[in-house]
């Protein structure tokens, strides 16, 4: 095969290259310099994220044909989600630097793994091939399995890692099976290639109605819903997430609950919105029926996810576990965006959610201290005025998670609600709105404990390091910025949408 037709372009994969290089540099540095200092490792990771962000912006608007034999695509969805991932990684690095030292854990591997996970997530967004999506997913998953068990002396951390690994592998198998079925479903005898995992080809074949078996495609799609559903933690595939989130080290939980969730949503959007949905718009009535079938399934999943997440969160006594259930509920809201086929809303939702959720976990980490001792809700009673700054930003993040207007959480919710309503899913919106009213209860409870209750135990306000302080200030400002002036971010996404429609139309 002629190499030039493969479309090799290092520019197209520059973000991934940079983060992978940063990861390797940290590992090599760690090996050469015996123990690399946490600061150097952290700075290297930050530099990697910053470099990748520059690369993403340099790619902006340069949409073209797929690269590397159709494996990699540079389109608005990839770029939008890449920004989400890089923001998540940057913030996670910022909140980890101090934690790593407090815990006395080796910094080198930690940041290296974090960077590898970021690389995987970036690949998931830029993949234009089911195999590539799988590869990205595996890179991310394996790094995060290790990260979950990173506090290896702690039994909870070990439990978390093992659970995540076993159930994660299981779900990956589902995903693979789904890929295999879709591969077979798109078989056309005599065509070249005969069967395919390339998403562009799959879209074309579905649109032409030239499928080997639409039923097989449906079964494959169902398997993929299971696989992605697991990664996103939607009900009924959410069972793992509370245990894993509670046991994993807090910065890792922050990373998992935002970054890997967003990555799964990116692939979810790529496969279900940009491939299946885009194809069935042009396809036969039979295909449209398939389309409405999976939309219905996803809508039911969204309802289950948010309802279970919110109801179970109410009775939690551990704040990390409570936020784990809250993040299940948020996956339900974001899933509404997929149901409404509006990936822009999902991307905006995820960036807003990432900022406020990492923010909340950052404060929890600062309060929990070494070894995650103070994570029970009762540890929060009366700390409001002892540590006013931390308590105030935590309140801000919690209110934003609940969806108070003027913050990022509200605009994100409004966008998904609006597109779901516009797409005709009125009942879904009504249920989501009721759910978000229910969620107020448990978010408010933390604020009540912090500010209105008498202090229960002795509490020394934690001192803030520079990196954590900077991260908190950035996140607080971003919460208001996205909530009050979302215009610019939305305009960026809107331009992206127009481009995306153009590409699909081509």
């Amino acid at each position, binding site marked *: 095969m002629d190499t030039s037709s493969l479309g090799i372009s290092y520019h197209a994969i520059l973000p991934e290259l940079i983060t992978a290089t940063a990861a390797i540099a940290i590992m090599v540095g760690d090996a050469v310099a015996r123990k690399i200092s946490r600061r150097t490792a952290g700075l290297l990771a930050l530099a990697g994220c910053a470099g990748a962000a520059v690369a993403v912006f340099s790619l902006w608007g340069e949409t073209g044909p797929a690269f590397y034999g159709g494996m990699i695509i540079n389109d608005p969805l990839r770029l939008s989600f890449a920004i989400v991932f890089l923001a998540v990684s940057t913030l996670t690095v910022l909140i980890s630097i101090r934690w790593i030292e407090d815990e006395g854990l080796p910094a080198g591997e930690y940041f290296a793994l974090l960077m590898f996970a970021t690389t995987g997530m970036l690949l998931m967004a830029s993949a234009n091939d089911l195999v590539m999506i799988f590869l990205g997913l595996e890179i991310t998953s394996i790094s995060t399995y290790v990260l979950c068990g990173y506090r290896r002396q702690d039994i909870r951390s070990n439990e978390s890692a093992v659970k995540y690994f076993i159930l994660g592998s299981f779900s990956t198998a589902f995903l693979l099976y789904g890929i295999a079925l879709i591969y077979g479903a798109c078989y056309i005898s005599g065509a070249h290639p005969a069967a395919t995992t390339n998403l562009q080809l799959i879209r074309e074949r579905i649109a032409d109605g030239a499928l080997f078996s639409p039923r097989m495609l449906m079964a494959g799609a169902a398997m993929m819903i299971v696989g992605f559903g697991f990664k996103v933690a939607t009900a009924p595939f959410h069972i793992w997430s509370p245990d894993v989130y509670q046991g994993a080290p807090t910065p890792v939980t922050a990373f998992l609950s935002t970054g890997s969730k967003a990555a799964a949503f990116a692939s979810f959007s790529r496969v279900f919105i940009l491939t299946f949905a885009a194809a069935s718009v042009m396809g036969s009535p039979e295909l449209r029926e398939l389309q409405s079938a999976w939309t219905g399934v996803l809508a039911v999943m969204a309802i289950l996810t948010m309802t279970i997440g919110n109801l179970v969160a109410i009775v939690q006594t551990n704040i990390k576990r409570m936020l784990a259930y809250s993040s299940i509920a948020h996956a339900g809201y974001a899933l509404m965006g997929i149901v409404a086929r509006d990936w822009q809303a999902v991307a905006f939702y995820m960036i807003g959610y990432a900022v406020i959720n990492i923010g909340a976990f950052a404060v929890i980490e600062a309060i929990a201290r070494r070894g995650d001792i103070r994570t029970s809700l009762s540890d929060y009673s009366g700390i409001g*005025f002892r540590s*006013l700054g931390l308590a105030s930003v935590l309140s801000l993040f919690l*209110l934003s998670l609940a969806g*108070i*207007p*003027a913050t990022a959480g*509200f*605009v994100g919710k*409004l*966008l998904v*609600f*609006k597109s779901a*309503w*516009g797409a005709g899913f009125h009942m879904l*919106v*009504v249920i989501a*709105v*009721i759910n*978000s*009213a229910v969620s*107020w*209860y448990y978010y*408010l409870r933390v604020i*009540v404990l912090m*500010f*209105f*209750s008498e202090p229960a135990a002795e509490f020394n306000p934690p001192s803030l390091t520079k990196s954590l302080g900077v991260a908190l200030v950035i996140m607080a400002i971003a919460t208001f910025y996205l909530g009050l*002036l*979302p*215009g610019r971010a*939305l*305009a960026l996404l*809107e*331009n992206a949408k*127009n481009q995306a429609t153009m590409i699909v139309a081509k």
Partner: protein
Amino acid sequence: MPGHAEIFGIGILSWVTWLPAIGSLIILFFNREKNDRIRWFANVWIVICFLVSIPLVTGLFSMGGLIRGGPGYDRALAGLQFIEDHDWIPLIGARYTLGIDGLALVLIMLTTLLGVISVVCSWSYIREKGREKEYYVVLLLLQSGMLGAFVSADLFLFFIFWEVMLVPMYFLIGIWGGKNRLYSAIKFFLYTLVGSVVMLLAVLKLYFIFPDVVRAQRPQVEATARQIAVSQETGQVNDRMLNLALDAMRRVDDRNLPSGYVSSTFNITALTSIGPHIKAVFGLSLVIWLFIGFALSFAIKVPMFPFHTWLPDAHYDAPTAGSVILAGVLLKMGTYGFMRFSLPIFPDAAADPSVRKVMITLSIIGIIYGALVAMAQKDVKKLIAYSSVSHLGFVMLGLFALNPSGINGAVMQMINHGISTGALFLLAGILYERRHTYEIAEFGGLASVMPIFSTIFLIVTLSSLGLPLTNNFIGEFLTLRGAFEARVLWGVLATTGVILGAAYMLWLYQRVFFGPVTNPANEKLKDLDRRELWQFAPLIFLIFWIGVYPDPVLSYVRPQTNTVVGLVQPDYFRVGPSAERNLAESVPSEPTAPAHSQSSEPDARAK
């Protein structure tokens, strides 16, 4: 000429809204230990905020290029004035549009005034309670939130202020409140939150049907927009407001919209213009559902009868300043919402006989039930809190009488309730500062110990029970007149509330102030000091001024009232048999416009 003023290139409404919030940001940078400085700063700042709101009425002289003045609110013009309009979130059609009508204007003046009083009255209470810095930060934020809700001319912006306002109030009750503050704070928050969540759904639906209604009935919708923009008394047209609404309608079919702009809008005037035509396009049931979505939220805030249970708790446990603001302004948000959104946007639902019957029945139950429960209270503050339920019942009754005198009366009652009940809560707060109890049985014979205090209490009591020459008389009179006009039975039932009101207020006064001093703790109570006395001065002045000469206030409100009546009962101002046919329920005694434009005159003369 519509009112207009700019300071440093920024419109005056933005200044009025954001100044308190800026003040709270500045306080954040104060040293926590320097309490005196914080307190002085907050007091001076809130007075500045009040002064900045005065040009809304008086107009502003131009002073060089930085302060570009203009006339104050023009009463000859209906609709929004001082309009500011900027792009905000084009992707969802939300704009930063501010503008006030006469109703909003009087409520803003009330808010800025009560803001001053609530900050001033906290002077010694908060010194005792502690955490002064945070207290003033929260209090000033609350002020901004409330003002923002009144000045918003964009439904999205309004919704944001409407919800954000909850947070500072929640902290105010939860941190600085009384014994049961935890329970009360959460109850207050969740009740109001449920309301706003339902409203959000209705807002979304309204937003989505806007383009459809405009497309289906463009000429009629545009005619309604013109009707809203024209003052029925003077015939002048409010061009700026009309153009904004017409722009929004033009965008519906504009194919050359810049990328990222949507065809729908949150502009309140535009949404009001489609109101009467939703029925023709989507049927009556949708209008009623939307009405319920908005009304539930507002009814909880008012609070109307079955939703009132949060109010006594919140009032009882809030600090004095919190109670003053809660009674004075926050409750008015609900009635303001009814008058600004529910009635004009959904006139078909509001005029629907069964909807109206439900609303009126609940109002009357609220009036009588609130008064009866107030009578049974053993506690000064709870008694005042329940009296609020009764008074707000009057306001709702007046609004749903759906005629000019009822609605004018309702607006008067909104203001009067803010003044009188605000003053009552201040007085109760002073009692509490002296004795640390609200228990009525603990007092008795205070008239001889605290003569100035008891005099002021008497004036406020008489005003609250609606003695002629005081403010509440005017409001109650107009409201009852409206109710009688709509249906005699409603008026008769509501009048019993006035009698009960006199009973519980006078009985309260008698138990607290008359008789011998039986409790030794009361023997040496300090009378009002100068600060405490001065904070009552503006309230007492208003009580008498509105009582004797209410027309200045009414003249601001009348254009808005006429617009609402014109929308809800299109035939009200028309002469002829059709008016009688369509007003089967009301007494068609004076269906002509001229008689109505002077509806307040007889009352003034009656004294």
